[in-house]
């Protein structure tokens, strides 16, 4: 059952600069990497990854516009509409794996860190422009022995991009797979690094979504529906996509160059 439901917000957490987590109870099985369509009546309904997938679910929202702003201003006791979870989740890699999160993309990969059977088989690399934008660092440390942080401005951890840091990490330890979510530019360069080191990856992509449930086609990339066939795709599938890192589509379906 993916249908529309209305849930009450039980907890609101300010995570970092402009980023807020909303927790709510929803009796549905959610796999790491799946997302909900979240409705604020009178405003909009937008896709949001599940940042918590246990009994009490959660979404972690960055305020960048009307709908996300409305979500970030909600309080405990307020109601939101949700439907889903939609999409394929991250598959559990065999052996040791590395989870990479960039900016708000950290929210989407957090459950993929917690799905590790023990702390020694999952390493973590989080990156953002600045230290105030790094979220869930403590939460990641509870599930992994090796959590590395990078910031573009050097205010916290490694000074540089998360991709440069991952390049160094891959030279030190071998991983069976990389799991990643972040801005498309980051994923684009990360894919090159994965190819260089010969590591397969699973990446979560974003495209403009309307129905979220595989019908309307507004989210397609190279003919694949990000909402239903993704949002997680394998590196070798992404590598074959002409549109990845190059173009996306607007609400009408017209092509926009990235």
């Amino acid at each position, binding site marked *: *059952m*993916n*249908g*529309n439901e*209305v849930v009450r917000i039980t907890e609101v957490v300010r995570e970092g600069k402009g980023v807020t987590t909303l927790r709510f109870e929803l009796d549905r099985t959610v796999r790491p990497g799946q997302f909900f*369509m979240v*409705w604020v*009546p009178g405003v*909009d*309904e*937008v896709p949001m990854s599940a940042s918590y997938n246990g009994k009490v679910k959660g979404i972690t929202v960055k305020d960048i516009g009307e709908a996300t702003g409305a979500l970030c201003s909600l309080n405990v006791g307020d*109601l939101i*509409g949700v*439907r889903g979870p939609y999409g394929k989740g991250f598959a559990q890699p065999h052996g040791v794996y590395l989870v990479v999160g960039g900016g708000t993309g950290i929210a989407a990969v957090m459950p993929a860190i917690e799905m590790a059977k023990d702390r020694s088989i999952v390493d973590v690399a989080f990156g953002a422009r600045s230290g105030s934008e790094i979220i869930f660092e403590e939460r990641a440390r509870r599930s992994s022995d090796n959590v590395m942080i990078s910031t573009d401005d050097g205010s916290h951890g490694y000074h540089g991009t998360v991709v440069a840091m991952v390049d160094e990490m891959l030279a030190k330890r071998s991983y069976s797979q990389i799991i990643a979510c972040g801005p498309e530019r980051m994923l684009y360069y990360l894919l090159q690094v994965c190819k260089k080191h010969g590591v397969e990856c699973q990446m979560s992509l974003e495209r403009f979504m*309307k*129905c*979220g*449930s*595989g*019908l*309307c*086609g*507004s989210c*397609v990339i*190279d*003919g*694949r*529906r990000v909402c*239903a*066939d993704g949002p997680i795709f394998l590196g070798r599938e992404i590598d074959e996509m002409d549109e990845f890192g190059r173009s996306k*589509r*607007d*609400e*009408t*379906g*017209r*092509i926009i160059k990235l």
Partner: protein
Amino acid sequence: MNSLRTVLARVVLDNPTMLASGMMGETGASLTKVAAAGAGAVVTKSVGIEPRTGYINPTLFETDGYYVNAMGLPNPGMDAYAEEMKLARASKVPIFASVFAASIKDFISVSSKMEEYGANAIELNLSCPHAKGYGMEMGIDPDIVHDIVKEVKGSVKIPVFAKLTPNTHRLVEVGLAVEKAGGDGIVAINTVKAIAISVEFRRPVLSNIYGGLSGPAVKPIGLRSVYDLYGKVSIPIIGVGGIDDWRDAMEYIMAGARAVQVGSAIGRKGLGVFEDVKTGMRDYMEANGVKSISDLVGVANERK
């Protein structure tokens, strides 16, 4: 070996399954994927004169038994769609171009463009409000439908199909109007006008308030529509509405459909639904000694 080969006007399909309009058909690449998944033909998203963003979300309400959607006909416009058609034509199956417009003049412009781009047939989406009709669907008025079909037929060489709305008690009259105007076939049905209400928020869910019902819940209405039309018109009918598996598809064939379109099932079943329907149909035909799927078209009408 039995045969699923289907002929609709002059358009030859290797099997009677088609992708319904509005499903994934926004891009040429996705139409190609659907063709590769085994559909006998694909229908584009409804394309209009100008680019449209469609309505703001929520545009879809979902439950297990049905969807209510009001996408608001988002599309890149007929000029930008040239690029998508170029890609789509790489697939080997016939392409039905779904067109919508608010006036006869615009129906002609878009249909001609789509013919120029290489469409194999036109599917007129008549569920759109008429510019002068106070929001009334064009497809509920047999006279308007007659004029649209006649004018478009006069402007293109490829076959013209009219997709009917079920939101009228004059469905058969509308079907007869399509035939009289020289239409090559009928597609039935588009979505059933509906509303979804949120009890907690005490308001309609869809931003447009009204939407169209689709999915398993509409199948009996679609079947009735095809059954009624089959008895009255002799042009081919394409059945659509709530088809989830081969049995649903076979019900439509027996009610009188020559081909079937799959819409909502793409959401939960994915593109594998086309192969499933084909396999189920072949097995049924094998077990019952049926040589050609065309032998089953309308059989339910003969056993009253």
